[in-house]
């Protein structure tokens, strides 16, 4: 296969007029469909005084009410489903606040369009059907593995469905099968790079590119990984609610991530007032999915802070670009690629009999995230027996692991040592400086 610069030139390089025409047509259809098929949407739109006939094109998008994670929670599990269940073929899921998960449904059409978005990202990173794509994102409910796996299939690359973990095996397959593109979280890429160097196998690998996402990473980290693995490192963005990875991706010019806006209309809003902001201004990213069948979300507030740009990219793609997320407009943390809400931790503490006065400390050492919860000791939890106190601490660690899906260290501290500020408590201390 000859090296093609785009997976889908027609959509990735369309004129602005053409893109707006597609978006408008698809938006009108989607709004009509959800209004007629989804009682939850109809109620929401009726409350906002908006009817499908008010939406003529993307110029009317701002009339639609926002959708938030709370809506997804209220509507769990089937409330936002826009297709009969018998037409759905897949779910993916992500952790939500207070333990309630978000479940997204896919028809075969939805899986295909998601995988095509990932294929676009692979081609933008130089991928062809001659590549060997090693996917070490987790497989299962998490969208990382299935998304890149599907994209690699669409492209016709040889796909190594490694899933996460087992570094020995990862390196062995990477060497033996000559993997050329690596897909994983940036922190795992950094870890793999170090392990490969430690084993003296740097000259045995054939990697040329990596597609790294699902967590925030810095430019320093990018350079570090690129240097250690001898590759070019590309960022990729996505969220389960909208489809998964591949909602946007970097091209080789790396001037932000191209949004697949023929599928997902992007807006940036003032997170406080909800007002739509012009390109170039920093605000909360909002997506409207206009091609999905089973789970189309209208004006979904991602809580990610970004800036949009429509300046012509040297790569030739005309799609709007977003900066790497610059922060969050809520208190969600992304630790080891997993969404963590302080409220989840609070729930666990209360359920296990600990006081709700706590502090979450997130650090990054050797490019790997560490999360620790500091809890104040209380007379009720205390005992003269070390084994009793330790057992209780272990119980908390296990309960946190069950809730969050990742290991969270616990540190018991003396009473009244966690600062109580007036008003809102400072619950989270993120020392990673990811958005600096």
């Amino acid at each position: 296969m000859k090296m093609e610069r785009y997976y889908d030139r027609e959509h990735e390089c369309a004129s602005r007029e053409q893109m707006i025409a597609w978006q408008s047509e698809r938006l009108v259809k989607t709004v009509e469909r959800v209004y007629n098929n989804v009682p939850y949407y109809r109620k929401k739109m009726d409350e906002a005084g908006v009817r499908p006939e008010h939406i003529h094109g993307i110029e009317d998008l701002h009339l639609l009410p926002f959708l938030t994670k709370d809506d997804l929670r209220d509507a769990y599990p089937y409330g936002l489903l826009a297709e009969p269940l018998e037409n759905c073929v897949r779910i993916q899921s992500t952790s939500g606040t207070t333990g309630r998960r978000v479940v997204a449904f896919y028809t075969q059409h939805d899986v295909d369009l998601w995988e095509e978005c990932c294929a676009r990202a692979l081609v933008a990173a130089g991928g062809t059907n001659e590549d060997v794509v090693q996917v070490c994102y987790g497989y299962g409910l998490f969208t990382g593995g299935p998304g890149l796996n599907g994209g690699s299939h669409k492209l016709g690359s040889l796909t190594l469905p490694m899933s996460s973990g087992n570094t020995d095996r990862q390196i062995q397959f990477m060497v033996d099968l000559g993997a050329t593109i690596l897909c994983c979280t940036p922190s795992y890429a950094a870890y793999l790079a170090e392990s490969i160097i430690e084993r003296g196998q740097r000259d045995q690998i054939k990697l040329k590119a990596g597609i790294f996402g699902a967590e925030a990473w810095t430019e320093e980290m990018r350079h570090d990984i690129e240097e250690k693995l001898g590759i070019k490192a590309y960022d990729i963005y996505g969220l389960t609610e909208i489809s998964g990875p591949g909602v946007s991706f970097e091209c080789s010019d790396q001037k932000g991530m191209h949004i697949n806006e023929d599928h997902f209309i992007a807006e940036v809003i003032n997170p406080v007032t909800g007002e739509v902001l012009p390109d170039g201004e920093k605000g909360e990213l909002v997506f409207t999915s206009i091609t999905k069948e089973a789970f189309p979300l209208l004006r979904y507030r991602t809580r990610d802070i970004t800036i949009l740009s429509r300046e012509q990219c040297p790569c030739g793609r005309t799609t709007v670009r977003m900066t790497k997320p610059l922060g969050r407009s809520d208190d969600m943390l992304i630790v080891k690629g997993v969404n963590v809400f302080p409220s989840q931790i609070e729930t666990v503490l209360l359920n296990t009999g600990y006081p709700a006065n706590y502090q979450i400390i997130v650090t990054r050492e050797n490019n790997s995230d560490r999360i620790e919860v500091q809890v104040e000791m209380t007379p009720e939890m205390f005992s003269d027996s070390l084994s009793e106190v330790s057992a209780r601490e272990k119980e908390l660690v296990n309960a946190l692991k069950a809730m969050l899906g990742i290991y969270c260290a616990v540190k018991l501290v003396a009473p009244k040592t966690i600062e109580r500020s007036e008003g809102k408590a400072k619950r989270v201390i993120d020392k990673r400086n990811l958005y600096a």
Partner: protein
Amino acid sequence: MTVRQISVFLENRPAALLEFTKLLEENSIDLRALSLAEAEDFGIVRIIVDDSYKTMQVLKDAGYVCNMTKVLAVEVEDKPGALVKVLKALGDNGVNLEYTYAFLSSKKGSAFMIMRVADNDAAVKALSAAGIKTVCQDDLGALFQ
């Protein structure tokens, strides 16, 4: 025939024990015995003092998490094999020892072991049947004169 032990939660950081002992000093509390058990991120200091109720109050006022438990103070002769005799008496009677630490008094020829067991009564019975003495809280003061 038990003594009152106070256990206190201490953070694992420099000077935590120093601050604790300073507080005892400021309140003229006399330590009879002390032992420190450490976990990865915290420690439990266990003490026997002259005035346990006053100490509890001082510690609580200072914001420490602490509790009081009854433990055995066993007199052990100062000669080889004496501890074996004590432990044999407990072991033969099925008494499980959770932790123990020693202290000395002004009494010549004897050492004392603090012993934490699940069943104090059974332990005292087993020890006295073997001719081993345990000290009660009220007798503790006399050992330090």
